[in-house]
């Protein structure tokens, strides 16, 4: 049993790395039908696959088209798996998170993967997309009564928008109402400190761990 699961995970990883959507979807459906542990399927299969794609990007083997295609295929598989992950816990969410890439910045792959992983782990996620003004993110967070605001910035010229979110919350006396987490390549722990944010994560799995710890889940 163990061996066949390991083979399934390897096949899932390979399907993402090979950008083979047909096989990836087939394996996801099989996992559901075989009643596999779907959290393991997400983490050891598809998330591991996209991490491998990221390594290939670092090695100079894969480029932006492959990165995007891998992310799309992974997203499509997770869209199949997530409803089954939440079975038996309908209506019970571990918390509400709004995510967005800040105004002036159109980078979205990392943010989208974070959203996908948070959903996979039972959080309700509102993804506002990219190039979103700080005020709009805050207004949305208030309206939807979220627990966590996650903001991504990949450019040094747009990072200041992350600080702006916390300044707006301060102006409106809402600092204690939300946790604010930051993401994006230029974000460092000293930037988080300067912004008075609640933390940052370098990858989607760490983002899930961070949100869980901030909400004591």
């Amino acid at each position, binding site marked *: 049993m163990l061996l066949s699961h390991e083979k399934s995970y390897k096949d899932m990883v390979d399907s993402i790395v090979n950008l083979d959507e047909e096989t990836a979807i087939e394996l996801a459906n099989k996992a559901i039908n075989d009643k596999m542990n779907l959290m393991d399927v997400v983490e050891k299969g598809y998330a591991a696959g996209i991490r491998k794609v990221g390594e290939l990007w670092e*090695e*100079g*083997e*894969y*480029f*932006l*088209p*492959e990165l*995007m*295609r891998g992310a*799309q295929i992974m997203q499509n598989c997770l869209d199949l798996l997530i409803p089954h992950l939440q079975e038996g816990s309908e209506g019970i969410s571990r918390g509400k998170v709004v995510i967005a890439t800040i*105004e*002036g910045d*159109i980078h979205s792959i990392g943010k989208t993967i974070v959203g996908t992983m948070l959903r996979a782990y039972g959080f309700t996620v509102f993804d506002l997309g990219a*190039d979103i003004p700080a005020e709009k993110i805050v207004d949305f967070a208030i309206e939807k009564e979220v627990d966590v605001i996650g903001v991504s910035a990949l450019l*040094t*010229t*747009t*990072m*200041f*928008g992350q*600080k702006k979110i916390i300044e707006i919350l301060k102006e409106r006396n809402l600092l204690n109402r939300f946790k604010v987490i930051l993401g994006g390549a*230029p974000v460092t722990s000293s*930037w988080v400190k*300067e912004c008075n944010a609640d933390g940052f994560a370098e990858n989607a799995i760490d983002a899930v761990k961070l949100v869980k710890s901030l909400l004591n889940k």
Partner: protein
Amino acid sequence: MLFHDWLKDDSKIVLFDGGFGSELIKRGLEPGKVPDMLNIEKPDTIVEIHKSYYDAGSDMCQSNTFGSTPLNLRIHNLEERINEIVEKALGNIQKACPPGRLVVGDIGPTGEFRPPVGNASSEEWYSSFATQTKLLEKGVDLFHIETVSDLEEMLSAVRAVKEVSNKPIIASITYKKTKRGFFTIMGDSLEKCINTLENENVDVIGANCTLGSSEMLDLVKQAVNMTDIPISVKPNAGQPRIEGTKTYYDQPIEEFVRDIQEMINLGIKIVGGCCGTTPETISEIRKIIDLI
């Protein structure tokens, strides 16, 4: 025509300008603002920067129109101001340009990627570049299509410019250094780009941005063996250092200029600088060129 004369003159090394965006940031350009709009809002500043590069010894400088394709302006809700932006940009650079020097029409990428990264088509790219070229055409001596990270997009740009104008083209791609060599972020190799651009009969093949001067030197060592077409380089002043929201380029100018000297020795025809380089950088390059 002067630029063609320069290209034919084996003893002439053409000196381009240096970083423009980094000069604007020093002068208080707000993050997220489209620099091209400053042609209208702060024309004196734009003229001053152009003049600082001509005074430093640049043979040619490029117009502040990097972002002035309709597709890019649309993202910022500025498309309807394109005529005004380009007209003012040309007025500003022509004001600064002394006799005997040239005005280069700067054409940057559209910011729209093709699938699966984005939704752009070759037709959209072509149309966007053609519109920008028509607006620039009468006011420039040549075109610099630059910082393009997709060979497909560069092809659309080159073909659009050639449809509109007979003026010379420098086709400049931005490469990243990987363990396997130099590639665009879309996966086009240096060799594929050079071969493709040779087939398009561009006047000059270029590389700019992303790479610092020492990495650009490594690129040049490969590129000079791949083509006899004149090559243009505009490296960055090393890799940026980020502190909070500020970006610093720490590379000493002497180091940058030493690398440029080596690139000239290898046969590079046009040299200049991109992000982080300054009029002082250009001035030091002018000194070494004048000694040749």
